[in-house]
């Protein structure tokens, strides 16, 4: 199963991108297109999740999953902060910034993970997309509290950072597309499904080719990562993912949704949170938090993390 996941074209294109970057090839996906594919992936995930919820209606499991997601996003930064301070030897600001990334989630990791879960017969419930959206921002608030910097300085957004956090482009697009998916329903989605459903996996391949290039170039460019922080960029997702799977199973979610919750908990943001942190904690080092989340945790999750979270969730689910 884990090995199968590794040989999906999606993962292979990520490897191709990484190898090209390590070999110092000039291969590059134009930025404007990479950004558009990111937008496309969020629209597609939102629409499809919303469509499924429109079909299934509001259920108890949905509320439970939402509660679990919120709790995880709010609380996961706390142990992460402690580990980053003590084991990672980071200062308060950097530890808080990194902790926020690991409490939040990665949309692309969720997308790739959902495909894997579907392929192995553990399809998560459609409402997990709503959980994904819920988990994006709370961790940022915890991170800012940990840094003791709710206020920001002269350059920080007037009217507070909350605005920047909640109206970050990717959050708005994901939530908005989810709501559109709910309103449009199956019938409204049909005419746009050729774009937002049929093309999804192919687009993910192009995006992951670029992610491979970007992650590997970042690994080579930056000297911000120490062995300690690189190790934490693997230990944190494993711990968070295991916690997510356990919480999901204990709360009574089906195995697939518990696995999706594990993937969300184990993933680290590299789109929404860095944009907010650059503004809220400008002294924090972007080389550090992007290096950890994008260049180490993302590849780890894509190749080893996702199969592991699926395995943990199904084991735990089998036990109860």
């Amino acid at each position, binding site marked *: 199963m884990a090995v199968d996941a590794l040989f999906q074209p999606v993962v292979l294109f990520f490897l191709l991108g990484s190898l090209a970057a390590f070999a110092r090839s000039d291969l590059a996906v134009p930025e404007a297109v*990479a*950004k558009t594919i990111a937008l496309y992936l969020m629209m597609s995930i939102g629409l499809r999740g919303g469509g499924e919820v429109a079909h299934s209606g509001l259920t108890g499991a949905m509320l439970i999953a939402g509660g679990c997601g919120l709790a995880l996003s709010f609380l996961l930064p706390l142990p992460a902060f402690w580990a980053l301070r003590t084991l990672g030897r980071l200062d308060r600001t950097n530890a808080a910034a990194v902790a926020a990334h690991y409490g939040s989630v990665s949309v692309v990791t969720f997308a790739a993970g959902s495909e894997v879960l579907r392929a192995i017969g553990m399809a998560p419930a459609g409402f997990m997309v709503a959980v994904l959206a819920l988990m994006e921002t709370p961790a940022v608030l915890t991170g800012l509290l940990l840094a003791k910097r709710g206020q920001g300085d002269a*350059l920080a957004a007037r009217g507070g950072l909350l605005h920047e956090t909640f109206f970050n482009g990717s959050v708005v697009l994901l939530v908005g597309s989810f709501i559109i998916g709910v309103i449009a329903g199956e019938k409204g989605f049909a005419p746009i499904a050729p774009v937002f459903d049929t093309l999804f996996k192919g687009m993910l391949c192009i995006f992951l080719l670029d992610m491979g290039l970007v992650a590997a170039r970042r690994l080579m460019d930056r000297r911000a990562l120490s062995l300690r922080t690189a190790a934490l960029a693997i230990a944190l997702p494993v711990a968070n993912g295991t916690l997510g799977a356990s919480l999901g199973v204990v709360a009574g979610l089906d195995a697939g949704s518990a696995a999706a919750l594990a993937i969300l908990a184990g993933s680290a943001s*590299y789109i929404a949170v*860095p*944009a907010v942190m650059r*503004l809220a904690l400008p002294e924090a080092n972007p080389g550090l938090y992007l290096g950890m989340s994008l260049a180490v945790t993302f590849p780890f999750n894509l190749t080893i993390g996702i199969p592991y979270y699926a395995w943990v969730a199904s084991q735990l689910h089998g036990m109860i």
Partner: protein
Amino acid sequence: MTETIIRRRVEVLADEPLIPAIERIAASAGIEHYTLLPTLGGMGHSGRWRDDQISGATAKVMFMAVTSEEGTDRLTDLLSPLLATHHLILLVSNVEVIRPQRFD
């Protein structure tokens, strides 16, 4: 021959998410008019960066305003405490303009 008058060109290189804040600070220094220019990448004390846009967080934008000596001083005073913490670059040079009243 058209006469030209000397003004100051102020350039601030800043992370894209900071640009709205730079615009506000410039306005509070009396600098209302400006142009934003794109960049591709660079190298500084904090390492190499590229405009990869996946996370717009590390893309940089050049804020450029032509203004008076006084406007320049006010903006420099407001920005200089932020240069180090926010990884900004501030450059000032002379430039000749016609219609000087448009660049005050």
